[in-house]
């Protein structure tokens, strides 16, 4: 098959899954009712369509962000969850709600992204000092880094009675998505498109600092741009639906086995696979305890954690 027909097949699959997602939920809907009953079309427009769109955007953007951070850090285990970014963002959002509760949505977003970027830069600087001998050390140090950051954030949230907000930010759940509450995610999608537009430059980052410099890439500036994009996109996701752990780790690693390291080729597939797997998990979560729900983050974590463990267990050096 040609790449084009692969793409066609993938889009058809995603369309079917998306259409299916529209009809699954606590309120049962049949196709015929949409035109006959106004309240049904209301459910569609205000809840089901925004929710499906939000899942698709979050899945694809996290897949892209994961792939991007792996190139920027030059390590296949790099991902916002293993870099402490969600915790940094949560710290920013928390400080915002405590210190400047009056500030608008945009200011909140910027402060969150700023703190996320700051935590990323601190971690990146630390890595530069260490010269890791084994790629596995990055997620190891990163997970502990995020655990310590997380403990600090939890402590602050506990002190200022913001625990509930914190759990919402760190556990992705699409149940609360309705019209008017997810539109910020379109901003994240724009960042994703920008990442694709700059994909060739970012691919060169993945070859390591020396080779990238030889190829004439402004290494430091480009890494900074990549990290800023990662922080901004992740903070948009964290603030609207909450973090989906390990999506950016598992999906790009699976895609890489088929598409290689060229981001121009692999980024669209990361986006597609992230979107469709997250949508699948969200639909499963809605069906499992119908009419109640299991958050998509939990379903995905169980799935992705298992995949990651199998990868580690097999010890496939080529894949990881």
């Amino acid at each position: 098959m040609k790449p084009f027909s692969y793409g066609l097949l993938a889009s058809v699959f995603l369309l079917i899954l998306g259409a299916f997602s529209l009809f699954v939920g606590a309120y049962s809907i049949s196709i015929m009712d949409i035109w006959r009953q106004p309240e049904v079309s209301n459910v569609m427009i205000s809840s089901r369509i925004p929710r499906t769109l939000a899942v698709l955007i979050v899945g694809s953007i996290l897949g892209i962000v994961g792939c991007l951070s792996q190139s920027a850090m030059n390590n296949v285990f790099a991902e916002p969850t293993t870099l402490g970014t969600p915790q940094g963002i949560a710290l920013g959002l928390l400080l915002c709600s405590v210190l400047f509760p009056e500030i608008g949505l945009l200011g909140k977003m910027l402060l969150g992204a700023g703190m996320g970027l700051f935590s990323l830069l601190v971690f990146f600087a630390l890595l530069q000092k260490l010269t890791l001998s084994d790629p596995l050390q990055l997620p190891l140090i990163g997970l502990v880094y995020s655990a310590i950051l997380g403990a600090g954030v939890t402590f602050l949230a506990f002190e200022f009675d913001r625990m509930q907000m914190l759990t919402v930010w760190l556990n992705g759940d699409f149940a609360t998505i309705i019209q008017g509450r997810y539109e910020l995610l379109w901003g994240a999608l724009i960042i994703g498109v920008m990442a694709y537009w700059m994909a060739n430059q970012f691919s060169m980052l993945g070859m390591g600092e020396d080779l990238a410099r030889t190829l004439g890439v402004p290494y430091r500036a480009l890494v900074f741009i990549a990290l800023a994009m990662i922080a901004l996109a992740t903070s948009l996701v964290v603030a609207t639906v909450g973090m989906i752990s390990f999506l950016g780790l598992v999906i790009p690693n699976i895609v890489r086995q088929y598409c290689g390291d060229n981001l121009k080729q692999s980024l669209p597939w990361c986006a597609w696979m992230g979107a469709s797997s997250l949508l699948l998990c969200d639909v499963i979560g809605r069906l499992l305890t119908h009419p109640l729900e299991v958050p998509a983050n939990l379903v995905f974590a169980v799935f992705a954690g298992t995949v990651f463990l199998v990868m580690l267990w097999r010890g496939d050096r080529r894949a990881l």
Partner: protein
Amino acid sequence: MHSNRFQERVLQGIFSVWLLSSFLFITLGLTPEDHFFLMLRFEKWLALNAVGVAVAVSTYVFQTLTHSRILTPSIMGLDAIYLLISLVLISAFGTVQYLAIDAMHLFLVNNVVMIGFALFIFGGLILRFHQDMNRLLLIGIVLGLLVQAANEFLGRMISPEDFVVFQGAAFARFDQLDRQVLWVALVLLAGCLCLLWRFHSVLDIFRLGRSHVINLGIAYVPMTCLFLMLVAVLVSISTALVGPILFFGLLVVALVQQCFPAGHSGYHLLMVAMVGALILVAGQTFFEHVLAMKATLSVVIEVIGGSVFFMLLVKRGRQ
């Protein structure tokens, strides 16, 4: 290297500080007439000591087995597995039957399953990846995260009534100890410690490394299995009593190893047990009776222990 006399002095010093803080913990703010409260605090004190000793000793043995200063049973996700077992039992039997089972029997069943898990997973993991410590660590951390997610997932699947029962089973705090479980745990703890003491000279050889153990004619696999079983029982004791504490064992053992790198295993075992008990008792006395804060001790331990873990990782990354 410090002389034996000095080491003994230190142990005695720690012992007396522990006695003092124990006395304060039980009696502070009470008169001899308050029998009920004194008894309550005494049981709490017993539990604190049991947890401190169990966590510290299990961590020390585990680190000796894996020849690593960073691995601990809780970082490898062992206490998360304990919670998973109780959750699976609840979802399989349903609350009514689960509550009908004696708390003591439940604890013992959990123990047996834990031993099986520890042997199966960690025995397999350690034998397979003993040269690739980073991979081992990462598998442990991801396993812990996965089990945590699975716990939460199962928690969503069962009914709210069942979930309340699970929370009671999973997070037995010091304030609501099950008396029966406490005594069974103490007996088990004593048994484990006796067995360990009997074999502490073998631990000395394990510190030399795997090849030395085999060279010196010690049955490597059976001894590893025995020690792993002891670790599993110790971890279930501490988890049954207070729930998971991630970095406490690491903190205690790192402290002792840093101060006395050259001691015998027997001395180290005594030392970590004393320091573990001391930190919990003294810390709890300070936070509960002096500062009147309840939840803070565990947070402080986690933050300090986490930072120590981070340092150890970074130090290793530098080498």
